């Protein structure tokens, strides 16, 4: 099994190669470069599939780490450039390459005729490469490089239609908001690795950091400060409140890019990093509580915003924010497997929904669901794939979203059982948000597919290259859930696949030691035997000693199943009442008084940000910076320049022209003057020479005689 895992770097490098080749030769090729992108992603995808299979059937596996030392700076530590392949990496490789492969195929049809078609494909490949680089990296510095590249590519692609000012603004907003979090990430990486310097030559190595953290070798300050700073990066990148503001605006980019950003390459980066560093996260209750609270707030309030949106892509964007909230909250309540599982399934159905939305938008030439309606008959394939995606997003039983989302709720319940209030929050708020999710997706589906056609176009089904990815993703949106479901209790399953050996062996959740008051019902035996719906990593508090992580068997959990079904039916029923007959005169979600106002204003985050961050920065800070640059620094520079010029001019006039040239000219003139005088001696009269010779001889003789 090892040889295949060793070649994980090929998966990463191929998209980069494709990006470079497309940039260099894309325009000359018959497919304008798209075939290069699709081919390289196909190979990457096959390889990722092989790696996923190897890690899955042999799970849980020991991580395979291959790295080269690369120390441009020296200085007593080694900067590695390498890969770390374990179950988590394999999951992410599979997710990223699958979604990216589908998006590449889809874009070939969807972006046909675009002016910057080749550029678009180059950027898609580069985007994929950046995310893969982050996913396979075995050290935090390399991860930061991938992270920043992801940010750059998202900026370039969100602002793809850069002719429009609002699109430029959206790109800038995404870049600057995530950049704010990146500062936190970098600080966090430095703090974490600073604690590692005394222990190892490779302080950025993720495995070593995780091991040191699990062994309790990192100080509490390091863990709390480092992880909170890294979490700040995740908040901005993974669209957690209050730094989610860039995500809805990112819809300015082309729809395939939205699919890529929301499913595979951008927003998942933050959750992935938290999962990757989960052994460190698990060291501090403060960190886990913070993460859980941010997640809970985001999953509920982010979802509410989707209720009042008319733009289909924005509805999906807010649903992404909400689902990311679930993932982050799951990390905060110890639901490592649940979080990664939801990340995995969400990637498929969110990509499906966005690509389906693109197909719909193509048909009616509008983003707004109020302009659609009655599309079920005109676009049957888009219809059923979109419905599958919506069901998965809403967590309808037996779809992938059901298994993964309920896994998160169960994780919350278990955490609550261990005596943490955040667990209950995740459980109940998560359940409420599931109702909201179902309602707004049902609203969107009824408005899009039921009733009369309100668009001014005759909608028609999209081409094969658009439908094929939709169908593949629709199958995956259902099938991927069965990796961890009560239907497949035997191992290996998703839980052993992504299991972290470090957490298995070492004492985890050290802060949970004194939670002995946890009720016996949720003790280790109790949890596993209690009929959990799909218990992944079961965390059990014993009376004494540290909390242990157990591998549980997914089982049914009837009370949760019942609640989910009731909430689902209620939400769909309400949505049918309101929207089943087409667009109502007054949209109920827009007729809720102050509540609607708050939602339409997006809780005022954008206004607040504009008024208290954008305006002061633009009008005061930028003006001051501009003044200091244009007047102060430029003044100094110009002054230095002027002084230099004056000095040079003076030097030229005095030293060069007068002293040096004068002395040289003077020498020449004096030579000319003297030669004019002296040449008279050379008379050519030989007898005069002889006379002078004789006279000189006589003088010399007399002189010698006198001297004697």
């Amino acid at each position, binding site marked *: 099994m090892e040889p295949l895992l060793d070649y994980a770097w090929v998966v990463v490098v191929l998209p980069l190669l494709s990006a470079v080749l497309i940039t260099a030769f894309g325009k000359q090729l018959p497919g304008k470069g798209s075939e290069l992108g699709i081919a390289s992603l196909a190979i990457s995808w096959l390889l990722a599939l092989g790696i996923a299979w190897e890690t899955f059937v042999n799970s849980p596996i020991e991580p395979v780490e291959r790295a080269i030392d690369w120390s441009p700076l020296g200085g007593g530590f080694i900067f590695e450039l390498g890969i770390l392949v374990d179950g988590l990496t394999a999951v992410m490789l599979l997710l990223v390459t699958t979604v990216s492969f589908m998006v590449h195929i889809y874009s070939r049809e969807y972006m046909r005729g675009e002016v910057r078609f080749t550029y678009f494909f180059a950027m898609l490949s580069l985007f994929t490469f950046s995310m893969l680089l982050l996913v396979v990296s075995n050290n935090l510095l390399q991860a930061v490089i991938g992270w920043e590249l992801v940010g750059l590519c998202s900026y370039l692609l969100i602002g793809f239609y850069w002719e429009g000012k609002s699109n430029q603004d959206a790109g800038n907003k995404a870049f600057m908001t995530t950049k704010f979090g990146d500062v936190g990430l970098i600080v966090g990486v430095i703090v974490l690795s600073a604690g590692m310097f005394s222990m190892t030559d490779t302080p950025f190595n993720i495995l070593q950091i995780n091991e040191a953290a699990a062994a309790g070798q990192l100080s509490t300050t390091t863990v709390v400060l480092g992880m909170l700073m890294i979490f700040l990066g995740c908040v901005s990148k993974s669209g957690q409140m209050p730094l989610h503001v860039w995500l809805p605006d990112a819809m300015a980019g082309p729809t395939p890019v939205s699919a890529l950003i929301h499913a595979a390459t951008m927003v998942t980066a933050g959750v992935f990093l938290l999962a990757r560093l989960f052994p460190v996260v698990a060291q501090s209750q403060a960190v886990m509580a913070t993460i859980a609270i941010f997640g809970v707030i985001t999953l509920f309030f982010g979802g509410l915003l989707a209720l009042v949106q008319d733009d289909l892509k924005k509805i999906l964007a807010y649903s992404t924010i909400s689902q990311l909230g679930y993932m982050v909250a799951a990390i905060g309540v110890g639901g490592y497997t649940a979080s990664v599982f939801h990340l995995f399934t969400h990637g498929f159905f969110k990509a499906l929904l966005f690509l389906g939305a693109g197909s719909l938008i193509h048909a009616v030439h509008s983003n707004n669901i109020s302009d659609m309606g009655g599309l079920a008959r005109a676009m049957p394939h888009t219809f059923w794939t979109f419905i599958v995606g919506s069901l998965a997003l809403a967590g309808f039983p037996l779809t992938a979203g059901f298994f993964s989302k309920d896994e998160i709720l169960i994780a919350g319940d278990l955490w609550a059982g261990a005596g943490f209030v955040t667990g209950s929050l995740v459980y109940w708020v998560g359940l409420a948000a599931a109702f909201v999710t179902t309602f707004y997706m049902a609203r969107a589906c009824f408005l899009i597919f039921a009733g009369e056609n309100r668009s001014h176009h005759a909608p028609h089904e999209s081409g094969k290259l658009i439908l094929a990815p939709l169908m593949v993703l629709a199958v995956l949106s259902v099938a991927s859930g069965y990796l961890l479901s009560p239907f497949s209790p035997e191992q290996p399953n998703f839980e052993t696949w992504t299991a972290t050996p470090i957490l298995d062996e070492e004492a985890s959740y050290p802060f949970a030691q004194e939670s002995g008051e946890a009720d016996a019902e949720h003790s280790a035996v109790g949890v596993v035997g209690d009929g959990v719906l799909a218990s992944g990593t079961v965390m059990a508090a014993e009376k004494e000693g540290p909390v242990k992580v157990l591998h549980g068997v997914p089982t049914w959990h009837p009370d949760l199943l019942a609640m989910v079904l009731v909430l689902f039916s209620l939400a769909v029923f309400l949505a049918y009442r309101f929207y089943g007959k087409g667009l109502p005169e007054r949209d109920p979600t827009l007729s809720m008084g102050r509540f609607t106002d708050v939602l339409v204003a997006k809780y005022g985050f954008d206004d607040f940000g504009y008024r208290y961050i954008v305006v002061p920065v633009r009008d005061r800070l930028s003006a001051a910076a501009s003044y200091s640059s244009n007047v102060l620094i430029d003044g100094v520079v110009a002054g230095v320049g002027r002084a230099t010029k004056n000095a040079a001019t003076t030097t030229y006039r005095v030293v060069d022209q007068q002293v040096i040239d004068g002395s040289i000219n003077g020498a020449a003139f004096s030579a000319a003057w003297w030669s004019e005088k002296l*040449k*008279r001696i*050379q*008379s*050519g*009269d*030989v*007898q005069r020479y*002889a*006379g002078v010779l*004789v006279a000189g001889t006589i003088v010399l003789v007399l002189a010698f005689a006198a001297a004697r």
Partner: protein
Amino acid sequence: MSPVGPLLLATFLFCAGVYGVIARRNAVLVLLSVELMLNAVNINLVTFQNLLFPDDPAVTGQMFALFIIGVAAAEVGVGLAIVFNMFRNRASVDVDDADLMRW
């Protein structure tokens, strides 16, 4: 025998030669004056040989004098050839006319 007479004669001849070289205009006479100086030297050589090394069987002074006579004959040959050429080109043997080497 007293060397005073021959030395006075040599001095006179040399001074006459110098005067001739400096003052005469005719190139042939300049050559003649050069011969006078050479012969003054010859007289000096013979005189001092007899005065200083009268018993030297090698008679170096006389030998030198003979060599100088030979060399002088060759020199006159070359000099007269130059004078002939000069006359042929300029129709004159006045040394004042030969001033090509001036500035």
